[in-house]
């Protein structure tokens, strides 16, 4: 367990010392600030636009971290051969993978927190009261990022970073359009197309389960049971994907 934490801590430090993260943070903050300017153009919708832009910035930031940083998380260690000096230490390949994932998850969590604080600060100046639904919305973004990180890690163990990013973006898009895909394929007259739709909905995670970003705008309440179900769904997918990635990594020759 200690080895996993040491690797996680090092991964956290690696990403936090990378300029990409700062670029991403600046982009997120600018997007949130842009909402102030856009809000001025609308009548009495300032808070709604700010919340919408704020959640979009946080969502995009978390997904970029999951997909782009996640795709190089293991690949870079293999390419630069740093993995060789790690795996000759008393740690297993699975522990290495879990440590790397936990490190990036901690960065994603911290990034969501930082951008959320900026958003909360702006909303406070607009005298917008904060509700529990904000946190539920943020938690949804984190769950989606965690699941997507599992997807990227899985692809990253056998594909190049570019392919891994492409596959993960594909899963991200299909994952958000899965309900529409199911709806339209079921309406199709072609049995093959209907079958394809069913198979896709089985093998691709439904990322709309975590889309709670508009709750605070429309003041909709999310039942706790649904939050717990979605958490279990995200964790099960992540565990499955990390286990599959670990199984591939265990078979690999390095160097």
């Amino acid at each position, binding site marked *: 367990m200690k080895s996993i934490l040491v690797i996680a801590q090092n991964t956290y430090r690696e990403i936090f010392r990378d300029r990409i993260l700062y670029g991403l943070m600046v982009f997120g903050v600018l997007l949130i600030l842009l909402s102030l300017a856009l809000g001025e153009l609308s009548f009495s919708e300032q808070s709604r636009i700010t919340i919408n832009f704020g959640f979009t910035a946080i969502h995009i930031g978390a997904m970029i971290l999951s997909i782009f940083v996640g795709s190089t998380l293991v690949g870079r260690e293999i390419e630069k051969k740093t993995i060789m*000096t790690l795996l*000759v230490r008393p740690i297993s390949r699975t522990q290495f993978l879990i440590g790397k994932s936990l490190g990036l998850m901690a960065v994603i969590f911290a990034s969501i927190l930082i951008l959320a604080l900026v958003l909360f600060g702006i909303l406070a100046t607009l005298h917008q009261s904060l509700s529990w639904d904000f946190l539920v919305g943020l938690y949804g973004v984190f769950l989606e990022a965690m699941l997507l990180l599992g997807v990227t890690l899985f692809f990253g163990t056998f594909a190049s970073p570019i392919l891994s990013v492409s596959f993960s973006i594909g899963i991200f898009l299909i994952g958000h359009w899965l309900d529409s895909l199911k709806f339209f394929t079921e309406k199709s007259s072609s049995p093959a197309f209907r079958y394809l739709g069913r198979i896709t909905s089985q093998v691709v995670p439904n990322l709309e389960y975590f889309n709670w970003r508009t709750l605070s705008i429309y003041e909709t309440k999310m039942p706790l049971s649904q939050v717990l179900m979605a958490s279990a769904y995200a964790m099960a997918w992540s565990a499955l994907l990390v286990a599959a990635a670990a199984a591939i990594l265990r078979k690999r*020759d*390095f160097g």
Partner: protein
Amino acid sequence: MSILKIEKLNKSYVRGFIPKTYKVLHDVSFELPSRSVTGFLGGNGAGKTTTIKCLLGLAYPDSGEITFFDGQPLSENVKRRIGFLPERPYFYEYLTGVEFLRFYGQLSGTMKKNVLEDRINALLKRVDLFHAKDKRLREYSKGMVQKIGVAQALIHDPELVILDEPMSGLDPDGRFYLAEIIREAANEGRSVFFSSHLLPDAEALCQRLVILKSGTMTYQGPLDTFLQKMGEAAIITFLASGTKQTVRVETEADLQTELSKLIRQGASIEAVKKDRNLEQAFIKMGLRGDGT
């Protein structure tokens, strides 16, 4: 005590769009006694790095047995007793020297925090990097990276140190300094196993050799025995007609003949020096170059 024993190690790789199998190691077997400095030699592509990867669990052999410390297979406990420096190392350049060694020290297991901190400082002084301990590795020169790499291999006080081409790409100063560190490690009772294609360095450091050619082991044993086997060349320095001259002979018989001839001619023999070195022995064995 055998610190490492490899028996009938075979390894092949499958490469290419149309998969083709390339056999890299053929029944490689050798043994390292404890407290020895062993050079692992062979041309480029001879299979040195593949052997090292197999023995450290970084690549899976097709067949063969690898044991450490009198018959133990590679395990977490065995890994705690081994230090390793890969070829052309690239390290986490965002870490400072101290953070880098702390990271590997923590990963290696059981050292208490204060013991680890003391060891980090001692090693940084020993590899002459204490002045750069708070600099990030991206600011280190190639020689400094190699030195910190050796320090990470020694951070957990290992019994066996495996170095893959540690001298490669270093300037003469860097090679000299690294040779000193290897000597010190050996003097502390560690077994050192290092691959190299820089024969003068290997000759200066090793007591034993393991030599690979095209994935097949061609020699294992003491360095002296190898050199003796490989030839009896000598250089005769003599004075004739008031001028100093030298002549090189290849065999013991030639030496005797040449000496008799020179004495008969009235030359004054000044010195007879055996002229054998690893480089020449390699050329003689056809081991130089690409390992073929």
